[in-house]
């Protein structure tokens, strides 16, 4: 068996960014990757699990609401409980929220429109499996593309997130100030991404997979994949 880490890219019916994540993991980070169909329960001994963006089940009921019942989710839950690194991007984040692997929920953007553009985020926690290659306070530019990204959670959950380093990224302006006008969707406290207590499950609305190579004019997102790969290599 190769010693390169293996990424499992989960494919739900309606996943759109599965190939984008595969491209990053293999071509840009130099790891191995396997697609895992949502009906399968075997994660193929993966080292990292990625839930990619898209519109699982068309988001017809509520983003992620149906995908959480897919058979693969049970395996992912076990994998996460055992400390395995799980990253949910955009729709993948929505699925993790619906599945209860991360707390809170997302609502429709406050502008009531889909929004696709670059935003800035401040790195609030650089100790998760996926953010070790950033420094706390780093301002990173990443694209968003979503209709439902307006994160919210009950006050006690927000407090808990706040005090336990659960808030990984916050929307900010280019100078790192968390302002309302820098917030693309109305998310509470500018929350763009969160993690579980162990820092092994991370979800965010922006797309690191869309800013991982020079030809696209931005490579900052690749570090999230590299961070997980590096953590494993160092095991």
């Amino acid at each position, binding site marked *: 068996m190769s010693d390169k880490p293996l990424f499992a890219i989960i494919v739900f019916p309606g996943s759109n960014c599965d190939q984008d994540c595969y491209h990053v993991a293999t071509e840009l980070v130099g790891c191995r990757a396997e697609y895992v169909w949502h009906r399968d329960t075997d994660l193929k001994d993966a080292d990292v699990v990625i839930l990619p963006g898209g*519109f699982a089940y*068309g988001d017809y009921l509520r983003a992620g609401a149906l995908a959480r019942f897919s058979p693969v989710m049970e395996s992912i839950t076990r994998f996460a409980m055992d400390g395995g690194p799980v990253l949910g991007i955009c729709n993948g984040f929505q699925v993790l929220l619906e599945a209860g692997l991360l707390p809170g929920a997302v609502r429709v953007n406050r502008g009531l429109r889909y929004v696709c553009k670059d935003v800035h985020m401040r790195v609030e926690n650089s100790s998760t499996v996926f953010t070790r290659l950033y420094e706390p306070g780093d301002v990173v530019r990443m694209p968003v593309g979503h209709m439902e990204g307006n994160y919210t959670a009950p006050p006690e959950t927000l407090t808990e997130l706040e005090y336990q380093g659960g808030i990984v990224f916050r929307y900010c302006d280019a100078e790192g100030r968390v302002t309302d006008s820098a917030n693309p969707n109305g998310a509470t406290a500018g929350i763009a991404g969160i993690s579980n207590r162990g820092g092994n499950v991370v979800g965010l609305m922006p797309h690191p997979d869309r800013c991982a190579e020079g030809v696209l004019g931005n490579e900052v997102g690749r570090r999230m994949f590299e961070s997980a790969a590096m953590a494993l290599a160092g095991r």
Partner: protein
Amino acid sequence: MISAELIADHNLSEEEYSRILEILGREPNLVELGVFSAMWSEHCSYKSSRLHLRNLPTQGPRVIQGPGENAGIVDIGDGLAVAFKMESHNHPSYIEPYQGAATGVGGILRDVFTMGARPIGSLDSLRFGRLDAPRMRHLVDGVVRGIAGYGNCIGIPTVGGETTFHPGYDSNILVNVMNVGLVEKDRIFRGRAEGTGNPVVYAGSKTGRDGIHGATMASEEFVGDETRQKRPTVQVGDPFTEKLLMEACLELFRTDAVVGIQDMGAAGLTSSSFEMAGRAGSGLEIDLSKVPVRETGMTPYEILLSESQERMLLVARRDRLESVMEVFAKWDLAAVEIGRVTDSGRVVFFFEGRIVADLPAAPLSDRAPLYDRPRVPPRTIGSMGWERLPEPDDYGGCLRAILASPNVAEKSWIWTQYDHMVGTNTVERPGGDAALLRIKGSRKAIAVKSDVNPWFCACDPYRGAAIAVAEAARSIAATGARPLGVTDCLNFGSPERPEIMGQFEAAVRGLSDACRVLSIPVVSGNVSFYNETDGRPIPPTPTVGMVGLIDDVSRRVSVPFRSEGDVVGLLGSNRDELGASEFLRRIHGRDEGPCPEVDLDAERRLVELLARLASKGLLSSAHDVSDGGLAVALAECAMKGTAGAEISLEETIRPSALLFGETTGRVVITFAAGDEGAIREASAAEQVPFRAVGTVRGTRLSIRVSGGRLLVDEDVASLQEIWTTSFESAIAAADVL
């Protein structure tokens, strides 16, 4: 018994009905009449346009598939090719903008992926009426949401397009959608029903009563309030099902199980079955009782003519039917064997054990009516005296006013609603001269662009169409790419009016001439007639979609000024033209001609020069001069970049025409001062007029003319504020009405 009334209800003329009798040697039954009506509709048969379309150049060394298939295909080397096509969804979008536009996206995607191509980018070319016209805000919002709703969900980026507002579309908007896909040259699929005995498989959504006679509707004009009653003929889109269908088809195409495939688009099962048999010279037997239906009690007539979305008809290899069914099952899609291929040359439909239609396949298309409709030379609109207008006092004010016009203002309000990045190929995002999509696993990228200026076409359909081609080619070349092929979407009023046919003939001639001179073949297209309401036709609108190729994506060029101290150069000649300009409309409220001149030979040389300069890495930036003229082009370069410029134009023509005239064949470039000699030399070799006109510098845009007279001196950040906020404000203001 087929009554005269029934014939008229099917939009068939007496002459067409006699032709049916002649082909069949008997009277058709009602089902057969419905089939003829759909197949011979203007939408499916191109009966008024075919004669003229034959003149378009469709050949070229890179052409793999020309017109006549679901999409055209052009070779891009390394065993890869691009499939592309543009189509209109005008009538449905005017009736129900969200679903009309959404299903337009769905339809064009199916046209591309049925060829075996994975769609990699869409463009939308939208024509609306004035924002304060009745329902217009609702239409703009609905169309944009519809395109977003479908394209975003299925995960195909919408990377380009253009939107203009012209009173001629107040009651007949245009929604033209283009898609480009990537296909391996040796894995191209076509819509052919081959191999006697092979099974015919129906896959995808169930058939409902929606969209019955959609093709016929698209072949009629709107009268009064009728539009709203036509709502049931608009189909409803389901992008999630289409996503599954697309993935299932692409998975199947990697096997050898599929013989031929076609989307059930306009005229549904009818056109797909007849066209597939017609192309292969075969026959089909299809049992309509096996077609999955959404509602009980559907008649054979309804099943055949339904335009329910997200459905495919495919012919599989007999011995591989099982694996075909397995793939559809994996993607949770209904797939049913509904018939088989025969060698009878006839398409026979059964329902509940009896034959309900039995028609020869080939004559339905071969002997479809072909009309050389009467036409009169189109009226051209010249000057109504703009030459006598006084020159403005405040050129800077004019520039600001033009930048605020909905036609010129930046429209990120539209394209930030579209996912333009999914697929991670979008190297040049919307808002540039052309969008660029890199080809993974290579150094290449393709450039995509759609274009047409309705004011130019209204003044002179021939020139307007030729300029659309030239302008698209110039935009593509400004990114460093070379044009490869064209798809067109020809939107016109009723072909039964001689003046409309005159416009159509002139526009097609303009397209042909331009494509010939520029050596860009037309590989696919679509005609949309009857774009009129209550007898008022739209301006002639021949939308051009173009695809280009750049061999080394690192050599791409974009619009923004890049480096302080770069030299600003102008390629092409300035002329004393103001006709059909945004300046005349916005500043003087005058909509008059003439359409600017076009010199196709000069355009060809300019395109060649740009590709050459880019490939040598000599350009820092490049931007085509179009809507709003030279001042707007310069402002755009500055507003998108980080620097201003000091410009000095030594010209004797009137300053307003110099700054705001929409003279064709011009491109603003910037380059390092040390490269001026090389650029001068290359321009001379291509006989393209070139002059250095200024320097990238500071935070203001200043433009001087002869004698050092300062005409424009504006803070770039303030211009940018106007340019980037005006469109959203205009939309918000329209909301109040």
